[in-house]
Structure formats: structure tokens, C-alpha cells
């Protein structure tokens, strides 16, 4: 077909519709007149000739319709007609329309909201150039599959790698910032010179670090974050060249990076060159200073090739430095995977659940449409009788469905916009990259797509059914239609809704059981009324070990005087869910392993005597560390039950000795305490170090005391609300030294809650989805049973007139509901058995096939469904046979 001719034909048909119509009229009239002229010439009277001509021509309207169709404009015209008519039909039944739109809006809104989360977190690329080339580089040692990287190894990697165009290393380093008398804690990173160029981030002002900055002895320089620059200096461009007092030293500002820059979801205030750090352990291959590496792959290099390349490099290092690197390896993880990999499973579970919710919503609306099509059966019968094709009726009904879906989608979008913000505000920090969540074009396309798909899903079955209507039957039956088939279809939809609701309820139930199990787990300490914070000390670098000890003792004494404080302990090393530190050791009496890698590892907690009460650890055997276990006394430790079980399986560990390699001391075990759930109440990470010991803070070797001089952590046990006591704590601190900074204040309950925040998020959302699913299913059951009862009034009346009792009627109606619900339950349970396996990783303390959950869900659903059936069933029993028989 000539596209141009077609276009012209359609265009003229559409835009000059009236002209086309008049011309068509005129043309056909002209034909009939010409024919009449000819007939007249054969001798017929004019009137008879015209009549004959018209009869010969055939049905004018039919041919006109065919002509219109032939111009190609009819489809568009019919669509406009369908839309107009659809609007009219929806307006005619506002209650139906409102309910259908609301149901769809909930379904589509929930899907849109969750998709916007998935889109922002999982699908959108990282906001760096060529983000797929960015890789996180971890060191591996026996038992640690993705650990920190030592600086000297990093320098060797940087020199020897062939797969990466650049590598960078970084570590957390917070600073006390002294400006106009008051000290503030700044978050910071020490970074190697290539850090920003590896990521592809350019400073908005000044420059990034160069190799000349990144070495010992270079002038102290600092790069500011855009946010800090704005807050502290009002975005003044004059900041370049000014100096900042960080930890008592003066740093010159050389650059500012964009305020939009985040790294692993975090904003930091300041960046300093890592190469200037003089700490002796930093340049020791054996010591972990929590430094991590990133790299940018060369174009065309795959992750697997890079992994192989880095393994070669690590292997040559192991040969060169057998003491330190004998069993060390390298593990590469794509940076985005590293950031969001942890949340993918639960987002996928949620996305699947919310998809089920939409299916339920569609089934519900389909049932509403079916119920309504009953009232419109006559309308369709008349249409078909007047010559409307089946497809024409289907199209009309689908148009109405699409209108509903369109409105539902628009309202859903609004709900999603409000709901996403509310949900993210409710659980801050649960999701990485939460800032990237927005209703962008992908999300809008998704919403459009699911709206159209839902329109087809819920509109197709009812409209196909309506179009198959036999006009004779319908018109004769005065609008009753073949109700049997419709009931079967409605029953199927209800069963489907019940089945989907079962799956969602089981999912939600399993998450509730998981949370309950997590809350039941004893963390190994008492989190109630315990609070922890970090404390940094000014001018710490110059303090001698004795001065540091004296200051901490003063702090202890001062804290104990604060009203509301029951116990206090300064702590370092590990802290539950906040920080992990481990030491290699060997048991006295056993041969000393040749190198550090062959030694056992245990987490250590540097504690004071007050720790037992402040953290609430349970002493099971022997004694806890006391104030007498100080720098002058013999070194002692308390070990945990895992340590005792693992290394002293058949003997009493108290009184035994342990050699601590990193501290270079021999410690005597004086007691056994309960095991602390270091990684939260859930399952521990793979290859986690389980053995633990408590070590007296004051017995920290002198050479390590400078670590404690800079910053320590504190644990307090309070009498009342721990957050309320903090005000007094801060006042007391100001009396000791106004330059001391308290930061990262968290109650231990908050710390615990954070550890299962993602699971709680899943549970809340699944719970909401399941509740909505249950509600929608009940509406569906109620609607169908009501409908049946309404339709069956006549039959019920007849039965009662023939002697049926109310109980018989009740049984009849309930039986009908029970069949649907039981079918749905059966299908749902089977589906749930298969599907809950997908969320096994999110579960804790409960199997995916937990019989109790399944039983509870089945019971709850049956109960609620029974209620939904009971209300209309009761109405059925009230039927007055006389009225019912007169009905219709």
C-alpha cells in the first residue's frame, strides 16, 4: 500500500470527516438516481424507478460502513467512540469505577514504588564514568574471603598489574577539627593519589592529590568534600591555600570535590594523602590497618582476566615475602555488585511479592467486571443482534479496562511517589544507594507497561466471555445470561486470589518468625540501657602511654560520678557489630607455628573492669578483669565459651596460658564469659572468626598505646533512658577538656536493630502486601458469594418453599465458598512450598517449609474467608420464600 495515499485517505477521513460523509452520501445518491434514470427510460414511473433502484442497490448504511472501513479511518474513529462510550459507562457506575481504580492503584502503586527502589539501587549504574570497569579489590587469607589490603602489597600490585589502568587505596580516618575554639569530629578518608582519577571524579575547585603529595615528608594537604565546603565555608572559592587544623596539625586545602560525590553510599568531609601516614604498622605487610583497594580495569579487560592477573601478582609476592604473604590472595568484586549485592535477594523477594499483589488486584477487578457484565448482558446481546462483531464487543470492553487501568496507574503513581518517600524515611540506612531512588523515566515506563498488562489481564477474560454471549438466549432470558459459566470463571479468579494470598501470607509469616527468632537470640550481653560512643582526645599524638592511661582513668572516674551512669568501660578492638579486630595466638604448651598465618585467630575486646556490668556480659567461670589488672600486674584475659570449647575441649581453661602474637605477651586465662554475637543475632558471615577474648585495656603494650591515645570507644550502662543520660555525659566531658569530642552515639539496642534492619524492612513490606492480599481476596470472596446469593434468590426461595431449613441454605452457600477457598488454599500451599525456598537466605531460625506458619496461614485464611462467605450467606437464609418466588 502506498503510505502517502493511505495517510491522505486516513487524514482526510479524520479531519474532514463531515466532508467525506457528505461526499459519500452524494456519490451513492448519484448512483441510485442514475440507475433510476435508466429504469425510468425503460418505461417505469419515476417513483417506482427510484424504489427499484434503491432495492437493487442494497443496504446503503451497510455499504457506507464498509466504505468507512475501507478508508482506514474507522479503526481510529471507533477507538475514539469506544473511549467516549467507556467514559460514559464508567461515569454511570461511580462506585464500581472508584473501587476498581482504587484496587488497581494499590496494586500498580506498590509495584511502581518497589520497582523505583529496584531501579535506583540495582539497575541504575554507579554515577561514575564507565562504572562497569570499577572493581573492589580485597585481600584474602585463610578464613577471610574478602579482607583488607596491606599498603606495601598494594604498592606492589600497583606496580605489577597489567589488567588495571589505575589502582587506589583508602582507609577511614576521622579527624578532630579545631576551629574557633570548639572541636568537631570530621569524617575522612586517607586516600592514595589516584583515588579520584580511578573513580573518574574531578575536583570542582583546585586539584586532586599527586604522587608528590602521597609520600612521607610531603607538606600536609587536604581535599574538602563539596558538602563540608558549603556548610563550613559557604562555598567560598578563597578556601584554596587556606589551612585547616586537623588533629592539632595544619593542613593546606588544595581542592574541593563535587558535593554529589558519594563512595559506597557515604559522604566524607575531608580527604588526606595516605602516603604521608607515618604509623609504623601501616608499612608492615603483616598488619591490617583496615585499608581497602579499588581499581579501574583497562578497556576490554574482563573481571576474570583481571582476577587471573592479580593472582599472578599475589603469587609472586608470596614467593618474595613468604613470612607475610604466604597464603595471601586477591579477590576482585565488581564495585556495584560489592555495594548492592547484599540487598539483591531481599529486593527480588519483595518484587515478586508485590507482583503477586498486582495479580490479586487484577483478579479482583476481573471479578468486578464479570459481576457487572451480568447487568450488561442485555446491552451486549442487543449489540450483537444489531450486527456488532465479537471482536468489536471485546474491543469496547477492553477499552473500558484500559481506561480503568490508566486511571489506576495514574493514581498508583501518586501513591508510589508518596509511599516510597514514606518507606525510605521509615527505615533510613537500610538500603545502599537510597539517594538514587526516584521516579525516573524507567519507572514511568514500567508503570505504563504494568498498567497496560493489568488492563489486558483483568479485562480480557470478562470481555471474551461477554462477547460470546448468545443474543437470542440473552434477550429471551431477559438478561440472565448463562450464569453457570460466569460463576465458574469467578470461582477460578477467587481461588487464584486465595492461592496468591496464601503465598504472600506464608512469606510474611516466615519473616515474622525470623524476626521473632532473631529477637529471642541472646546477643551474649545485655543491650537494654547500654549505650556506646566514640571519644577522641586532642593533641593525642604527643601523649606518652602513661599520660594516656592517666587520662582514661580520669575519664572513668568522672563518668562514674555522672548521675544515671551505673557502669563505664573504655574499650577498643572489637565492638559488637561495630568493629572487628582479631589477633593471632597459640596455646602455651603447644609448638609455636612458623608464621602468623598458621596461628589461630581470635577476636579481642580491650576492656576495663566496668565492661562486665556496662556491656552486661555474663561471667560463666572464674573471674572477670578487675581494676587491679593494670600495667603493673601480670597479663590476664577472659575467654568466651567458643574459645574454651575449641581450644580447651576437655579441660578447665582457667589458669591456662595463651601467647598473643600481635601483643607479644603471654596471658593467663582467669575466666570464661558468654559468647558475644559479634555480627548480630543472625547467622555469622562465612569463615568468621568465632573465638573471642577480653583483654585489660590498661595492659595494652606501650608500643600500641598511641592507637588508644587518638580515639577510644566507651560503653556505659545507665539507670534510665540512656539517650537522656548523654546530656550529662557531655557536660562532664566538657569539664575534663572542652576539646574532647563525643561522636557516633548509639544505644546497643539501636546497634542490634540495625543488624536486622533489612529483614525488618522485608517483614514490614511483606506484611503490608500480605494484609492487602488478604483484604482483596476477602473482597473477592464476599463479592462472588453475594452475587451468587443474589442470583440464586429464586432457587433458595424454591428450596425453602419445598421445606429446606435455614441451616441447609447456609450449608449450600458456605459450601460454594468453601470449594473456592479450599482449591485456592491447596494451590497456594503447593506454590508457597516451591517459592519460599527463594527467600531461604533471608530466613533465620525457621525453615522455608515451617509447618506452623503454613498451618497458621491456612487457618487464618479459612477463618477470614468463612466470615466473608458468612455475611452474604446469612442474607440468603433470611430470604422469604414468597417474596423470592415472586422475584422476577
Amino acid at each position, binding site marked *: *500500500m502506498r503510505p502517502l495515499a493511505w495517510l491522505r485517505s486516513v487524514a482526510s477521513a479524520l479531519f474532514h470527516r463531515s466532508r467525506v460523509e457528505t461526499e459519500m452520501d*452524494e456519490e451513492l445518491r*448519484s*448512483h441510485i438516481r*442514475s*440507475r433510476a434514470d435508466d429504469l425510468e427510460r425503460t418505461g417505469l414511473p419515476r417513483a417506482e424507478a427510484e424504489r427499484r433502484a434503491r432495492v437493487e*442497490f442494497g443496504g446503503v448504511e451497510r455499504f457506507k460502513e464498509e466504505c468507512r472501513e475501507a478508508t482506514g479511518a474507522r479503526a481510529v474513529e471507533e477507538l475514539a467512540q469506544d473511549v467516549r462510550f467507556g467514559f460514559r459507562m464508567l461515569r454511570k457506575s461511580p462506585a464500581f469505577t472508584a473501587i476498581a481504580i482504587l484496587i488497581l492503584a494499590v496494586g500498580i502503586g506498590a509495584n511502581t514504588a518497589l520497582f523505583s527502589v529496584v531501579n535506583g539501587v540495582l539497575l541504575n549504574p554507579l554515577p561514575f564514568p564507565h562504572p562497569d570497569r570499577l572493581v573492589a579489590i580485597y585481600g584474602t587469607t585463610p578464613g577471610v574471603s574478602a579482607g583488607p589490603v596491606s599498603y606495601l602489597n598494594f604498592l606492589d600490585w600497583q606496580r605489577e598489574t597489567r589488567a588495571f589502568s589505575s589502582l587506589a587505596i583508602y582507609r577511614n580516618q576521622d579527624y578532630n577539627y579545631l576551629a574557633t575554639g570548639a572541636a568537631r569530629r570530621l569524617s575522612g578518608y586517607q586516600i592514595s593519589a589516584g583515588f579520584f582519577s580511578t573513580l573518574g571524579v574531578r575536583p570542582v575547585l583546585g586539584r586532586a592529590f599527586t604522587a608528590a603529595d602521597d609520600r612521607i615528608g610531603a607538606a600536609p594537604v587536604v581535599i574538602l568534600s563539596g558538602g563540608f565546603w558549603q556548610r563550613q565555608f559557604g562555598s567560598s572559592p578563597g578556601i584554596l591555600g587556606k589551612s585547616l587544623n586537623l588533629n592539632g596539625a595544619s593542613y593546606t586545602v588544595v581542592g574541593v570535590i563535587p558535593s554529589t560525590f558519594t563512595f559506597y553510599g557515604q559522604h566524607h568531609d575531608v580527604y588526606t594523602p595516605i602516603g604521608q601516614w607515618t604509623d609504623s604498622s601501616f608499612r608492615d605487610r603483616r598488619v591490617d590497618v583496615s585499608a581497602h583497594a579499588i581499581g579501574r580495569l583497562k578497556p576490554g579487560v574482563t573481571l576474570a582476566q583481571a582476577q587471573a592477573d592479580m593472582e599472578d601478582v599475589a603469587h609472586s609476592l608470596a614467593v618474595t615475602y613468604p613470612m607475610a604473604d604466604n597464603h595471601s590472595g586477591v579477590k576482585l568484586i565488581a564495585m556495584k555488585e560489592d555495594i548492592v549485592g547484599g540487598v539483591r535477594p531481599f529486593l527480588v523477594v519483595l518484587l515478586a511479592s508485590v507482583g503477586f499483589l498486582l495479580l490479586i488486584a487484577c483478579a479482583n477487578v476481573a471479578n468486578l467486571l464479570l459481576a457487572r457484565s451480568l447487568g450488561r448482558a442485555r446491552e451486549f446481546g442487543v449489540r450483537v443482534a444489531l450486527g456488532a462483531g465479537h471482536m468489536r464487543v471485546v474491543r469496547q470492553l477492553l477499552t473500558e479496562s484500559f481506561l480503568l487501568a490508566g486511571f489506576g496507574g495514574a493514581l498508583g503513581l501518586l501513591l508510589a511517589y508518596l509511599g516510597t518517600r514514606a518507606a525510605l524515611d521509615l527505615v533510613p540506612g537500610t538500603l545502599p544507594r537510597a539517594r538514587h531512588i526516584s521516579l525516573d523515566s524507567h519507572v514511568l515506563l514500567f508503570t505504563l507497561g504494568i498498567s497496560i498488562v493489568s488492563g489486558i489481564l483483568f479485562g480480557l477474560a470478562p470481555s471474551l466471555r461477554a462477547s460470546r454471549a448468545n443474543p437470542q438466549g440473552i434477550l429471551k432470558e431477559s438478561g440472565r445470561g448463562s450464569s453457570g459459566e460466569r460463576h465458574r470463571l469467578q470461582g477460578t479468579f477467587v481461588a487464584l486470589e486465595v492461592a496468591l494470598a496464601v503465598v504472600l501470607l506464608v512469606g510474611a509469616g516466615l519473616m515474622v518468625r525470623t524476626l521473632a527468632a532473631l529477637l529471642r537470640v541472646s546477643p551474649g550481653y545485655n543491650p537494654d540501657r547500654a549505650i556506646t560512643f566514640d571519644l577522641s582526645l586532642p593533641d593525642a599524638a604527643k601523649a606518652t602511654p602513661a599520660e594516656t592511661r592517666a587520662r582514661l582513668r580520669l575519664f572513668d572516674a568522672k563518668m562514674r560520678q555522672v548521675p544515671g551512669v551505673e557502669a563505664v568501660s573504655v574499650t577498643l578492638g572489637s565492638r559488637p557489630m561495630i568493629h572487628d579486630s582479631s589477633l593471632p595466638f597459640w596455646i602455651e604448651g603447644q609448638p609455636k607455628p612458623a608464621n602468623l598465618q598458621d596461628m589461630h585467630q581470635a577476636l579481642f575486646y580491650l576492656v576495663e573492669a566496668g565492661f562486665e556490668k556496662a556491656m552486661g556480659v555474663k561471667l560463666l567461670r572464674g573471674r572477670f578483669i578487675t581494676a587491679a589488672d593494670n600495667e603493673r600486674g601480670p597479663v590476664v584475659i577472659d575467654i568466651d565459651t567458643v574459645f574454651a570449647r575449641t581450644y580447651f575441649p576437655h579441660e578447665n581453661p582457667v589458669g591456662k596460658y595463651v601467647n598473643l602474637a600481635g601483643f607479644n605477651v603471654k596471658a593467663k586465662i582467669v575466666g570464661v564469659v558468654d559468647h558475644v554475637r559479634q555480627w548480630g543475632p543472625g547467622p555469622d558471615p562465612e569463615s568468621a572468626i568465632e573465638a573471642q577474648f577480653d583483654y585489660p585495656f590498661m595492659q595494652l603494650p606501650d608500643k600500641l598505646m598511641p592507637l588508644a591515645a587518638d580515639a577510644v570507644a566507651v560503653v556505659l550502662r545507665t539507670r534510665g533512658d540512656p539517650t537522656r543520660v548523654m546530656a550529662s555525659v557531655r557536660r562532664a566531658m566538657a569539664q575534663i577538656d572542652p576539646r574532647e569530642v563525643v561522636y557516633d552515639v548509639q544505644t546497643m539496642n539501636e546497634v542490634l536493630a540495625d543488624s536486622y534492619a533489612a529483614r525488618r524492612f522485608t517483614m514490614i513490606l511483606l506484611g503490608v502486601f500480605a494484609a492487602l492480599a488478604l483484604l482483596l481476596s476477602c473482597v473477592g470472596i464476599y463479592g462472588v458469594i453475594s452475587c451468587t446469593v443474589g442470583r440464586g434468590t429464586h432457587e433458595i426461595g424454591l428450596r425453602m418453599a419445598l421445606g429446606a431449613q435455614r441451616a441447609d441454605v447456609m450449608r449450600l452457600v458456605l459450601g460454594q465458598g468453601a470449594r473456592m477457598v479450599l482449591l485456592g488454599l491447596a494451590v497456594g500451599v503447593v506454590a508457597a512450598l516451591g517459592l519460599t525456598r527463594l527467600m531461604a537466605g533471608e530466613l533465620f531460625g525457621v525453615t522455608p517449609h515451617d509447618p506452623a506458619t503454613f498451618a497458621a496461614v491456612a487457618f487464618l485464611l479459612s477463618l477470614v474467608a468463612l466470615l466473608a462467605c458468612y455475611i452474604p450467606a446469612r442474607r440468603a437464609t433470611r430470604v422469604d420464600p414468597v417474596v423470592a418466588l415472586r422475584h422476577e
Partner: protein
Amino acid sequence: MTDRARLLPGTLDLLILKAVSLGPLHGYGILLRIGQISRKALLIEQGALYPALFRLVRQGLLKPSWGTSENNRRAKFYELTAAGRKRLREEADGWNRLAAAIAVALGARPEQI
């Protein structure tokens, strides 16, 4: 009437193109011309002509224009476009080949097999 042949599907378009190829015609004229050239052997329902005409216009095979008929009535005349002429040639060839083949097939006698 019953001795007239009913049209095979698709042949109406061919007949219209043929009729119009002999000179511009209005709808009724096309009907008469087909009757004339088929020696009144073909039956065409009068109204059915028009959807076919509209279709051919849409396909760019016919070009309509308003004029005056021999009876002095305003009428819509159709003439063949270049594409229409080409189509007529192709369809006519195809039809002739088909007709010849069918005639041969139907003329087959037992001894020829």
C-alpha cells in the same frame, strides 16, 4: 439472473481496474461498463462496488475527482493511476495464467493420464 456467474473473491478489484482503464468513469458507469465488457455474464451487487472503490483509492490505484455525468448529474469519476495501471497488468497476467491452467486441468481426459 441465476445464470450469471458469481464473482470469485478478489476479481471485483480486477474488473474495476479494467473498466476504469478504458476511460474515467463514475461508480454507476463502472457497473454498466463491467456489464458491457462481460456481456452481462457477471453479477455485481451494486452497493458492494463502493467499498471496493474506496479501498482502491486508499491503495493509490484509483484517483477520484468530481465531474458531471452524461445525465448532467454531479458524480465522482475514477481514473487509473500509474500504480493502478501496473497492478492491472500484473493481475491480468496472473488471472490469465490461472485461467489457462484451470482450463487445461479441466479439459483433461482419461486417456491423457
